[in-house]
């Protein structure tokens, strides 16, 4: 398996303070790689180096074995940075067209854009300017835009921040569906989300603290508490029957489900939305990654 991203002894200093210290890890082709760390850990700085916006003081970053600061290394990279990077004065279609013009030829432009807008449920925005979009719509459009060049590598910096549960599920579904052909580098604060989506993870706090697989964690049992406004018991029971859930409890309006893995969790939430029910709360009690994260970060602080 060849490496898609390589951080090789990367050190970045800004006015004598060390932002990144000897960061060293590989992201393999086909990985959904979670990049975790507390605020100020250097995640955004790493992504800026990866996108060629900053140069490391020491070491180098490689994309597909080419140095990340070389323009050709980024031709097959899709990205959705911390800010959406969308033009508010343009429509969704025009924003897509701008990036399509950067990467692609004229042929099939219309259908390419239409397909991606359909994918993120923004096909009906017409002449509405992006400035009038909600935050969730902007995030979805930014993701569609990132996919315009059929990327081999997709870099996502906190793609679900500020999204409602429906939007989060949609984005995670898209990430899963494209992961068959695309390597994904995924920075997030949300440990549960990273655990659900990623197969490998690294934790940084200025230096690399951990890098490994999360696959075992994905199979860990989780507790999902779903509370639905004005929901009769039979709706809960239909959900339970549909997904064959055996371990559950209904107390007043709250349905508590113990799932053996996270596989059905998004589908259950999707089903609630499909039934046009109002979801009040989803509480997930998890997880090994969360425990591991806090253990590692606390250990590092104590040192």
């Amino acid at each position, binding site marked *: 398996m060849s490496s898609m991203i390589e951080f090789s002894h990367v050190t970045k200093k800004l006015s004598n303070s060390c932002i990144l210290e000897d960061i060293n890890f590989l992201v393999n082709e086909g990985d959904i790689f979670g990049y975790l760390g507390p605020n100020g850990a250097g995640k955004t700085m790493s992504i800026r180096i990866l996108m*060629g916006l900053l140069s490391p003081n020491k070491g180098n970053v490689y994309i597909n074995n080419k140095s990340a600061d070389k323009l050709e290394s980024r031709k097959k990279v899709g990205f959705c940075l911390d*800010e959406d990077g969308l033009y508010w004065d343009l429509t969704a279609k025009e924003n897509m067209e701008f990036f399509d013009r950067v990467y692609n030829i004229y042929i099939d432009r219309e259908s390419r854009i239409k397909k991606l807008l359909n994918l993120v449920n923004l096909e009906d925005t017409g002449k509405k300017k992006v400035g009038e979009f909600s935050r969730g719509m902007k995030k979805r459009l930014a993701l569609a835009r990132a996919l315009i060049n059929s990327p081999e590598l997709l870099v996502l910096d906190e793609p679900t921040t500020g999204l409602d549960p429906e939007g989060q599920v949609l984005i995670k579904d898209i990430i899963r569906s494209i992961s068959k052909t695309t390597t994904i580098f995924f920075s997030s604060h949300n440990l549960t989300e990273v655990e659900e989506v990623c197969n490998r993870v690294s934790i940084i706090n200025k230096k690399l603290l951990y890098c490994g697989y999360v696959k075992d964690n994905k199979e860990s049992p989780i507790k999902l508490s779903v509370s639905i406004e004005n929901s009769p018991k039979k709706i809960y029971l239909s959900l339970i029957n549909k997904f064959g859930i055996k371990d559950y409890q209904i107390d007043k309006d709250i349905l508590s489900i113990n799932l053996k893995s996270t596989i059905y969790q998004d589908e259950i939430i999707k089903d609630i939305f499909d039934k046009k029910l109002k979801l009040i709360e989803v509480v997930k009690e998890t997880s090994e990654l969360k425990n591991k994260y806090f253990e590692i970060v606390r250990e590092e602080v104590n040192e």
Partner: protein
Amino acid sequence: MNKVISAVIWKEYSILNHRLKSIVISTAFTLMFLVSVGCIRIFFSIKTTDNPKLIIENMMLYIAITSGYMLLVSLLRFWQEKSQKTIETLLSLPTNIQSILVSKCIVPIFFCLLFTVVELIIVHIIFILIFDIAFLSIKAFVCNIIVILILDLPFAIVNGFTMWCMNITYSKMMQVFCSLFYVGLLFMFITFANLQFYSILRVILICGAVLWCIATLCLCLMKKEKVVLNLQD
């Protein structure tokens, strides 16, 4: 042409196209003001000169250059890339920062050229109606085009550099400094209404040479890292 450059030009064109109505209205008001100033100036100078055509021609050029300068400043959209937080995405595109900067200047300059030529035609008609001297000033058209081609691009480059790479204080100071070279030639129209064509051309070339030197230096100093780190200010 590089795909990124042509895409940026298309994007700038689309954004300005959405704002076309407000641009036309504000330009019309600017034109009304400048034509009034021009008329007053001509009324005062025309009695003391034996060459009224020269004064009218210079006032036409004064109106076109001033209006073009104001239009260019309002059309350049470097700050918006920072305020709408699109700059990191723009700079992440696979091309160098110098190409992005220059391609962002092309559409505003083209709009300036187009608008000022139309304005000069309108001003011709107004002056013919008011002063009853009918002529077509090729000099005004030629000088205006030279000013736009020689001064607008370096001015826009310096403007972009200051907006993206400098903190707000130095950015404003640099812009004032460059504006002086741009509008410096306007002062001579106010001071000497009977300037000859070659004198005007000489001043344009001197101001242009200074601006081009500064713009070249700015392009050499421009780096993506500088822009990104300046975002944290």
